[in-house]
């Protein structure tokens, strides 16, 4: 009898051990998150890593409450290579369609990398009715399309910075520099690609011309250019006080190295993608001290002591991946997007795409980037205070390899330091 009781006890124990977790959501069908993006680019790769981090955190706490039951998140990623040279948009679309049809995702996160692929995929996503929160492609035209047909495109959201907000924030940085130092002579250097041209033109027309700045020159460099000496000599001979760079190509950090070795007495302030992460200091021979870089979202490889969630995010990433986060665009919004989706599913109480999209519209989430709410074009609202909106973070590389957040003022940790040979005009 005792033996039987022992067996029964062991059997019951094993049964509870095996089935216990299932009662908390392990047994239920997981909620599939599709991640179709350009995974061999640092921003695509790191965005997937931060997204996985959020998924693991949520799953460790029991998952997502869908109505009465709890479900876990499961990630299905696919490299659609839409940012790689020579890869046509239709190929990227095939990838998105493949992940939708084969993996049956409840939502797509991160999404297309290039704006062209995002625009082309909108009809596909509307056709298959899959909610998507994009966190890399930045074209504002997608918002216009959503406003024109809000019923058809109601599934598409973006929680990263868009090109309009980028222009606005670069203007903010320039205004701040003008206010602090009285500088008003600028030389603009940018990559010869659509987004960089549009951003440069936007800042020149919307700010420099109206605010009385003297634009000494505007130079467009082909992708892959690695000698910026003539532009820098022009900036120097013209007496530029500020050089505004706008680049996302790998060789663009050479511009800062040359600026440093040629000792050009002008403040380098703008966006150079390779300078975004902490690894840039070693990668570029410790020759980037003094450069100011605008990372597209707070948390994307930059944190501020004044925004505790960004610090916690940075530390959690380092703990999980045993290295610092690199990449200045997409990482923080990809992480936040998982939580935004979780909350929307829980509010909707179902995985039904229409209900989840309706819940996403009502998002009011305080995350790594600050507060996320969507406007009527389903674009996350960016501002200057993380308590009110999502924010960018402009930081300056110090001469010892540190990074100090200098803009916006709500999260600034220090003042801008001028390079040797440049004095304030005030």
């Amino acid at each position, binding site marked *: 009898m005792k033996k039987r009781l022992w067996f029964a006890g062991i059997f019951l124990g094993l049964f509870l051990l095996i089935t216990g977790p299932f009662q908390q959501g392990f047994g239920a069908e997981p909620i599939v998150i599709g991640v179709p993006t350009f995974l*061999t*680019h*640092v921003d695509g*790769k790191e965005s997937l890593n931060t997204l996985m981090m959020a998924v693991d955190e949520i799953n460790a706490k029991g998952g997502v409450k869908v109505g009465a039951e709890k479900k876990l998140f499961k990630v299905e990623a696919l490299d659609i290579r839409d940012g790689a*040279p020579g890869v046509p948009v239709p190929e990227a679309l095939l990838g998105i369609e493949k992940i939708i049809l084969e993996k049956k995702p409840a939502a797509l996160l991160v999404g297309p990398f290039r704006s062209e692929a995002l625009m082309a995929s909108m009809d596909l996503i509307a056709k298959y009715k899959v909610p998507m929160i994009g966190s890399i492609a930045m074209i504002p035209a997608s918002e216009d399309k959503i406003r024109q047909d809000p019923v058809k495109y109601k599934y598409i959201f973006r929680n990263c910075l868009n090109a309009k907000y980028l222009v606005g924030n670069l203007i903010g940085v320039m205004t701040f520099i003008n206010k602090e130092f009285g500088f008003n002579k600028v030389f603009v250097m940018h990559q*010869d690609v659509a987004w960089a041209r549009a951003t440069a033109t936007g800042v020149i027309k919307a700010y420099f011309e109206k605010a009385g700045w003297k634009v000494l020159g505007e*130079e*467009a*460099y*082909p992708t*892959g*250019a*690695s*000698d910026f*000496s*003539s*532009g820098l*000599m*022009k900036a120097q*001979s013209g007496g530029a006080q500020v050089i505004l760079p706008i680049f996302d190509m*790998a*060789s663009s*950090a*050479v511009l800062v190295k*040359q600026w440093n*070795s*040629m*000792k050009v007495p002008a403040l380098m302030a703008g966006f150079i*993608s*390779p300078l975004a*992460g902490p*690894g*840039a200091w070693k*990668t*570029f*021979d410790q020759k980037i001290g003094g450069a100011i870089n605008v990372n597209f979202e707070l948390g994307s490889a930059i944190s501020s002591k004044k925004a505790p969630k960004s610090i916690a995010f940075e530390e959690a990433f380092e703990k999980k991946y045993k290295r610092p986060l*690199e990449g200045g665009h997409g990482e923080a919004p990809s992480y936040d997007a998982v939580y935004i989706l979780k909350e929307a599913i829980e509010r909707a109480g179902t995985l039904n795409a229409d209900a989840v999209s309706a819940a996403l519209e009502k998002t009011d989430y305080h995350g790594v980037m600050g507060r996320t709410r969507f406007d009527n074009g389903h674009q996350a609202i960016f501002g200057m205070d993380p308590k009110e909106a999502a924010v960018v973070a402009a930081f300056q590389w110090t001469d010892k390899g540190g990074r100090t957040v200098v803009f916006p003022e709500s999260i600034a940790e220090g003042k801008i330091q001028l390079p040797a040979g440049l004095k304030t005009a005030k």
Partner: protein
Amino acid sequence: MITGTLIYALINSVILILMALGFNLTFGISGVSNFAYGALYVLSAFVTWILLKTAGLPYALAAGLSILITTLIGGLMYRFILMRVRGQALSEVISTFGIGLAILELFRYLGFVGFEYSLPVFIDRSFHIAGAQVDAQRILLVLVSLFLILCLWLFVHYTSIGLAFRGIAQDERTAMTFGIDSDRMAMWSVAMGAGLAAIAATVIMPLGTISVEEGYEVLLNALAVCIIGGLGSSGGVILAGLVVGFAQRFTDTYIGPHWTMIVSLVAILLVLVIKPSGFFGKQKELEERI
């Protein structure tokens, strides 16, 4: 401003010459158009990076080993692939291009994509020359190139392998009657071409970043300089490098940097229309006379 432009134009020219030397040497001796040249350049840079960053070797040792490895790969490439198709120009082009694609795309597949792949400069200083600030790496690059050109000249004029190279380049059949092994010399020429690509990568790469795309760009630059100078002509490569290098830098300064891309393409078109054999090339002189 003008002196600065001239200085940087000279440096740009030297970079182009250095990029093309290996391709030209291989073609001039063995007649093989090594379309894997750009891939070997990138391979060498990545090998240096791996030895330096992951194996933790000293920079000089990592660079030296990388040059040796790339030279060896060039030799093996000839011995096991090119030897079988040598003399069939189209097959040579297809096979070398295929090898180049395989090397470059393998690096992409393995994840060698990003901003972290760059090599440190040899000397971290800059100098003020005639009103322009120039960094030591660029000055070193010019000195290395001059030294390399001198070494190559001495090699082909005063060593037995160098003399055999010249013999094969002048008349392969006659050279063979003197006991010179044509295939062996061709293997040496492909290996040395690969080694020169590796040396070029070692001194040029610290100025930029290592990327897969660089392989295609280097091949295009080497081709442009060789076509304009005349395939197989060392003097032609130097002259073409100077012409294209100065044209690019002056276009950059006085017209706009985005126009520099088309300078070498326009130069190729002009040369092909006016003198298809290039400045000093012998390849098509007979047809041109006819």
